[in-house]
């Protein structure tokens, strides 16, 4: 075994292999930087080159690509508050506040260094466990997976923010949105209202972009300054590396968590970052500032999401079951190379397995090194006046959103979740709680149903289930002690803007917008309950219980809002706080209208024409840039998008114009 292991290393350390791996790393880096694009887009670029290639070289190239994506997607998360991929959503929570404080370079280098450590640990885990992992993976049945979903949901306790009641209500909102589409047990369609788009459920990437990116763009547009509050980048990349070194134990733990969760097929990579983030919040005792730019909130998810790839290769190689989206793509690439994953990967193909291990380790080093080198120049983006950056970001999130299904519906749903995100942010409804509910809705429902089918309710007494239950109980207990809040200290301490009168009438007067929002949420749960009642028993039981719970907690929120004392924990409205701070803000609707304008233009004239029109209009009318500047920026962005689209054989969503006339690419 050792000799196979070492001969794989000597194989890979040739110039040719390293060269191909470097190609994979560089392509992965360029693709990964762009939000919404990941392993899938990368593979499409690589496929034509796989033919006739030597197997180990091709594997090195594919692994180089897959390994670097969770590293490079951090750029968007930290610098722009746009989740670069589903694996780095949690990074936004502290990474973006750091960028706002002018610590973008520090956040990035900490993230990349943590990614490096995580990636290496993932490779170590893969090496050590590949020969013995089969029984371990088989030990996780639907019962344990259900309990793990519950464990994931328990992170809501940590991420709920100021008010736990609101956190639970937001989580229920996510669970209901996540149950849109086919029911796992019966396949019947829930809450689709006859809309084709909803039959498949709402894509995660759109929820992530809508909840996190749109509200940040709107907020920055209203404040009308650069992302960074300071004109210099302050503490640089060396500081970030020191941060990781100082928190080595946290980095190791989160890498371990990432590798473990990645190795369990069925849970998916989408919760790894949240669980790692939650773990950091629960365990860090020394002066935690999570949610306001704590570097440990960046280190935790970033080390975990790279380690996840090494763990995720275990089920991919041993069982041919992809551990996540990127792994599905990798699997497709392997099949094209004529390698069929399965038990042979630890038998006659062990040399290939070890080639993969070594490639993974080396690619992580190369990728992290390149990213750290790029961190300083790229983080200067945060110093640019936002009104010049905004049209790019709006185009980028729309482009990323329609990677989901390549239809106009993607953009419409993005706008809708964006509006939801803006108001959740304003009224202090924790968005991570919604996202966790959304991600785990299908898994929790599916595994619960399967566990009951296979084992009956006795599944709760299985050893594995009891262990995870114990961990969950511990996590809830820890979570109640250490809750992270998106609210800044100023927001927490802010005195509600209101007259001195108390009582329900005065409350309603002072909190009318919040009450209206909560009432809307309540109405949504009502729709959920109504829809669930139309389904068969197995199709309705899960959404019905969740919608009832959500309605109950939202009703509690409403009750507190109407009856609660001034400065009650439930009451939160960032508008009041901004007024108190005396910051002049532009209108929310105005900012949202710009996003809506691009969507509407796309609906009329297709994406490319809409993009150009939108850019010119925004830069001239809103940013009041000169014609030269407008021209350069518009041409730059259009050229970039077109290059990317042609490299990836991508079609843009069309509008009315495209329905009426046949136009040549790229207008088609």
């Amino acid at each position, binding site marked *: 075994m050792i000799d196979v292991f070492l001969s794989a290393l000597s194989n890979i350390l040739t110039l040719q292999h390293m060269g191909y791996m470097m190609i994979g790393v560089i392509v992965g880096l360029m693709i990964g930087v762009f939000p919404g694009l990941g392993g899938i887009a990368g593979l499409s670029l690589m496929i034509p080159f796989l033919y006739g290639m030597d197997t180990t070289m091709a594997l090195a190239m594919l692994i180089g690509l897959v390994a670097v994506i969770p590293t490079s997607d951090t750029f968007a998360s930290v610098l722009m508050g746009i989740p670069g991929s589903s694996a780095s959503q949690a990074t936004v929570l502290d990474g973006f506040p750091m960028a706002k404080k002018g610590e973008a370079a520090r956040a990035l280098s900490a993230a990349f260094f943590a990614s490096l450590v995580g990636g290496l640990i993932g490779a170590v885990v893969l090496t050590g466990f590949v020969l013995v992992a089969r029984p371990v993976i088989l030990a996780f*049945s639907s019962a344990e997976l259900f309990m793990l979903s519950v464990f994931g949901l328990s992170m809501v306790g940590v991420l709920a923010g100021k008010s736990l009641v609101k956190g639970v209500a937001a989580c229920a909102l996510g669970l209901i949105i996540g149950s849109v589409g086919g029911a796992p*047990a019966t396949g019947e369609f829930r809450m689709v209202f006859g809309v084709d788009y909803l039959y*498949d459920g709402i894509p995660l990437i759109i929820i992530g972009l809508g909840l996190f990116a749109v509200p940040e763009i709107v907020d920055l547009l209203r404040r009308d300054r650069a992302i960074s509050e300071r004109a210099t980048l302050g503490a640089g990349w060396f500081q970030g590396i020191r941060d990781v070194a100082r928190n080595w134990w946290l980095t190791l733990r989160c890498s371990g968590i990432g590798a473990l969760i990645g190795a369990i097929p*069925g849970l998916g990579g989408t919760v790894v970052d949240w669980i790692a983030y939650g773990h950091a919040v629960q365990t860090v005792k020394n002066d935690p500032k999570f949610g306001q730019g704590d570097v440990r909130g960046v280190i935790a998810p970033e080390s975990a999401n790279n380690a996840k790839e090494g763990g995720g290769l275990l089920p991919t190689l041993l069982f041919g079951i992809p551990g996540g989206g990127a792994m599905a793509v990798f699997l497709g690439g392997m*099949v094209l190379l004529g390698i069929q994953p399965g*038990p042979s990967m630890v038998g006659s193909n062990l040399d290939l397995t070890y080639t993969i291990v070594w490639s993974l380790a080396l690619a992580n080093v190369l990728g992290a090194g390149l990213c750290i080198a790029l961190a300083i120049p790229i983080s200067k983006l945060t110093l640019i006046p936002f009104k010049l950056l905004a049209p790019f970001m709006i185009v980028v999130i729309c482009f990323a959103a329609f990677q989901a299904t390549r239809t106009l519906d993607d953009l419409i749903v993005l706008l809708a979740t964006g509006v939801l995100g803006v108001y959740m942010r304003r009224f202090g409804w924790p968005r991570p709680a919604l996202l966790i509910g959304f991600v785990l809705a299908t898994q929790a429902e599916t595994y619960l149903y*399967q566990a009951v089918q296979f084992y009956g309710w006795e599944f709760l007494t299985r050893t594995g289930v009891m262990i995870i239950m114990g961990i969950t109980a511990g996590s809830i207990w820890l979570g109640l002690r250490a809750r992270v809040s998106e609210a800044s200290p100023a927001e927490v301490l802010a005195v509600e803007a209101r007259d001195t009168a108390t009582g329900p009438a005065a409350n309603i007067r002072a909190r009318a917008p919040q009450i209206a929002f909560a009432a809307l949420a309540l109405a949504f749960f009502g729709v959920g309950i109504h829809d669930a009642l139309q389904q068969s028993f197995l199709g309705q039981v899960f959404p019905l219980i969740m919608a009832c719970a959500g309605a109950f907690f939202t009703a509690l929120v409403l009750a507190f809002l109407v009856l609660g004392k001034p400065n009650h924990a439930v009451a939160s409205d960032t508008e009041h706080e901004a007024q108190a701070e005396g910051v002049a803000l532009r209108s929310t609707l105005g900012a949202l209208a710009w996003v809506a304008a691009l969507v509407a233009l796309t609906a009329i004239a297709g994406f490319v024409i809409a993009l150009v029109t939108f850019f010119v209009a925004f830069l001239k009318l809103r940013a009041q840039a000169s014609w030269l500047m407008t021209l350069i920026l518009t041409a730059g962005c259009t050229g970039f998008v077109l290059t990317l689209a042609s490299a990836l054989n991508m079609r843009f969503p069309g509008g009315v114009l495209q329905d009426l006339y046949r136009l040549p690419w790229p207008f088609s």
Partner: protein
Amino acid sequence: MTLKTPTRRGALGLLGAAAAALTLGAPAQAQVDFSGKTVEWIIPFGTGGGSDTWARFNAPFLSKHLPGNPTVVVVNEPGGGSTRGTNLFAQRARADGLTILGTSGSTQFPYLLGDPRVRYEYQDWSVVMVGPTGGVAYVSPSTGVESIDDVAKLQGQRLVYASQGATSLDLVPMLAFRLLGLDVNYVFGFGGRGDGRLAFERGETNIDYQTSSAFINNVTPLVEAGTAIPLMSWGVLDEDGNPQRDPTFPDLPILEEVYEMVHGEAPSGPMYEAYKAFNTAGFAAQKMVVLPAGASEELVETYRQAWRDVFADPDYQATFVAALGSYEQVTDRAAEALFAAGTNIDPDVRAMVVEMLAEEYNVRLGD
């Protein structure tokens, strides 16, 4: 969806006549030239899945053998269980040979079942290539079965099967088990056959099936270890549409044989008709390449010639078994026979299956 028999027969007759004319005289040599053009191969599935891999494997060979060597790009249009991309093709594609569609069993099934999301009509299209595959059902030794001869022991037992959904390809084993009179409890919500196999390995289920390549790579070791007992394969169709043993698994009986072992007579009746239709649509004619409505004879012949050349290409022959398994892809008459068998169903049989799905598995196709 055309279910009126005369129309279908008419369409088939036309296709048959066209094929006959081509094989007899090959009147017009292909004069289509795709130099400098790009052929978009629509795959109504996401990247990385079976259909995508299949198309990406074939695409460079197609490019090499089409006149003028156009660039062939795979365009993924996933959604709605493949109905979205296919609808898009039906609605938009022009019959200029620059847009082709690759379908799969999951595209055929909703069409055969009359899913309301289906707005495409197979009989409008011209088939130029069909890629078959196969599947093998197996059970756990915990059922007391040691070989197919013990199949009678399965009756009366409570079997458990991990399913992706009643309208997925799992409909084929479902119908097969029903024909054999097995009492199977279907647990739904599995993400793929791989997840189902994992449940089998964990001992949560005791009956399962895998497509051929997954069976060979992942179940054969279990068979060798004695933890899985192969039962039967889904078989293949010969050029006349008769079920035969799968050449990949010559020792395994097909359902028709097992049915005779169990019931003492050859299978017949609407349930068997349903099995045959869905088995063909799901396996023997799983992957199809079609040209849009209105494609000229010349264009169809150009594409068929390209596939003939692909199949004769030594590079193709050297690599396709490793990537796609040992099932020969076909064109011409064989493809047409499979196309016809895989995209037609008797309306009464269809109604029976839809009713069965609705009553026993709560599947509501019209919503």
